[in-house]
């Protein structure tokens, strides 16, 4: 299959040092936070690739680098074979950029309160000088709102309706790839179901490709074709949803799945996971998960495991079998 997005060796390091003068006076070293470390994956066209992980695992940072909001410290993001960070042909850059859109988590913060819905939705097209006549009305009906809503302001809508407006805006420039960063985390369950159904319908209708970022395993299981599990900025496992949920191979995936609340887990006594995510400024050597891992051996403390193929999945663990 043809890969729409190809991410190779993606790394992002943030400088979180104190200001220069404090460093000199207090004799502190530079503090570097590795948010994303050597992540590689591909998204075939018309597929949903989901990234899951806990806070601080680097999922949003990857999303921002894929759309080009952040520059990678190392590694390459190629979309339709074009690397936005190094490409010099303006026509190509323009073409690829208009093929990418993003949906953010908080529908209250991502809509300008002083703009009418019509202007918000048409902006991605208007900014490139396109024809926006009737566009907003058409898109509003496609996402399940009515054409009259175009004249209203964002505050007149509920959270779920606002997220629909965000989706309409993302569709305006007829993109091929939409990066969805926790699109339903701020919504109630019944509204979440409406928005997820809408996103599935639109995917089929417009032939979209999604990079779906979420911390909610149940949502990801429902939406994704492939799931990538992140831990401390590293991709630890990549598998199809059924494989991952029935047969998790990495000990972190196993821990995460065991900890997730189950609807039929009445009075279930979970053995809660031990410890917390380590400090990303000083990550443990070797496999980042080894201090919490029940099956860690000496090798895990020294050597960082590479992603390797295992029964239809990819897993970064020395011990997984």
């Amino acid at each position, binding site marked *: 299959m043809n890969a729409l997005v190809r991410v190779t060796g993606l790394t992002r390091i943030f400088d979180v040092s104190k200001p220069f003068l404090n460093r000199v006076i207090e004799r502190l070293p530079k503090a570097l936070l590795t948010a994303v470390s050597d992540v590689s994956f591909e998204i075939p066209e018309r597929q949903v690739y989901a990234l899951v992980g*806990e*806070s601080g695992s680097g999922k949003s940072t990857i999303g921002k680098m894929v759309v080009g909001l952040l520059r990678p410290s190392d590694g390459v993001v190629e979309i339709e074979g074009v690397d936005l960070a190094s490409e010099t042909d303006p026509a190509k850059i323009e073409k690829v950029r208009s093929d990418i859109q993003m949906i953010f988590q908080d529908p209250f913060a991502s809509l300008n309160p002083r703009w009418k819905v019509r202007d918000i939705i048409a902006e991605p097209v208007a900014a490139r000088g396109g024809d926006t006549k009737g566009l907003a009305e058409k898109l509003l009906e496609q996402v399940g709102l009515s054409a009259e809503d175009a004249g209203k302001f964002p505050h007149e809508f*509920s*959270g*779920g*309706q606002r997220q629909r407006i965000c989706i309409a805006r993302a569709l305006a420039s007829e993109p091929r790839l939409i990066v969805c960063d926790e699109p339903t985390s701020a919504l*109630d*369950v*019944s*509204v*979440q*179901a*409406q928005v*997820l*159904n809408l996103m*599935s319908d639109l995917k089929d209708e417009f032939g979209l490709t999604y990079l779906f970022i979420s*911390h*909610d*395993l*149940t*949502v990801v*299981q*429902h939406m994704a074709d492939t799931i990538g599990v992140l831990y401390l900025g590293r991709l630890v496992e990549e598998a199809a949803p059924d494989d991952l949920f029935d047969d998790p191979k990495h000990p972190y995936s196993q*821990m*995460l799945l*065991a*900890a*997730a*609340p*189950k*609807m*039929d*887990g*009445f*009075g*279930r*006594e*979970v053995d*809660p*996971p031990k410890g*917390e*995510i380590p400090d990303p400024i000083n990550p443990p050597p070797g496999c980042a998960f080894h201090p919490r891992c029940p099956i860690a051996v000496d090798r895990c403390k020294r050597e960082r495991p590479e992603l390797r193929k295992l029964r239809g999945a990819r897993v970064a663990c020395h011990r997984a079998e």
Partner: protein
Amino acid sequence: MSDTVLSVRDLVVEIPTRHAVLRPVDKVSYDIRKGEILGVVGESGAGKSMTGNAVIGLLDRPARITGGEIHLNGQRIDNLSTSQMRRVRGKEIGMVFQDPLTSLNPLIPIGDQLSETMLEHLDITRTEARERAVAALEEVGIPAARERIDSYPHEFSGGMRQRVVIALALCAEPSLVIADEPTTALDVSVQAQIIALLKRLCRERGTAVMLVTHDMGVIAEAADRVAVMYAGRLAELGPVRQVLTAPRHPYTDGLMGSTPLASKGQARLRQIPGAMPRLGSLPPGCAFHPRCPKVQDKCREDPGPTLDTCDGRAACWFPILTEATA
């Protein structure tokens, strides 16, 4: 019953506004027994938190209790004065809020915050209070509690802070704890730790817990009974297994169906059409009728059904009765 810790009867909370009087909590009745965890679920605006705040006497003005009674261990507490209520709060009722950072004072070491609560409510000395604070922190699983007792809240991670808040809620040995979305701000693995901790402590001490959350999975694992709220009213109240596996109220049924877990293997999620009505424009009759798949004339006209007027479990004129439950 003698082991009833909290008893709420026909509780009504009203907010007077310029246009109308809103009722975020409308005739809600429930009991919580000793050592029991009652889960309260519902979507935003359903009145879950407002019910909890009414019990603990922390309603923000202009919201106020205008009807019903709240009894704690047989004593009526909804009509206590502010100073009397202060003695109940903390001593008899502990509270765990959603965001652990905002419920701790950032300028005071955690040990002092714990001993302050104990000195206020228990007859002990400063030294004893400090010893008890160390013990309380050890009990909630904070490593090296004796060294960390003088640390400030910002020196702890989110999960550790929520443990401190739980220690704070339990340190005066209250008979009731109200946990308002205690794990919503936390990651899955930390959430499992906190829920396990809350369950263990309450079982050991026989503390009654009112667990307010919107996460059905948390309810399924932690609660003994569950109350489902919709638009300020109780839609369904019953043992957790029955309510979740064989819901009788169409709203509970829709809510359960719309979680991705319940629709496993299906291309589309089941969805409830529409959204919860605003408090200012509640429909007449049953508040759920505009979205209900089984709506009939009686639902539109008659006054809203309550648990008492219906079958005692679901506030619905036409509850879903499967063969197993009928």
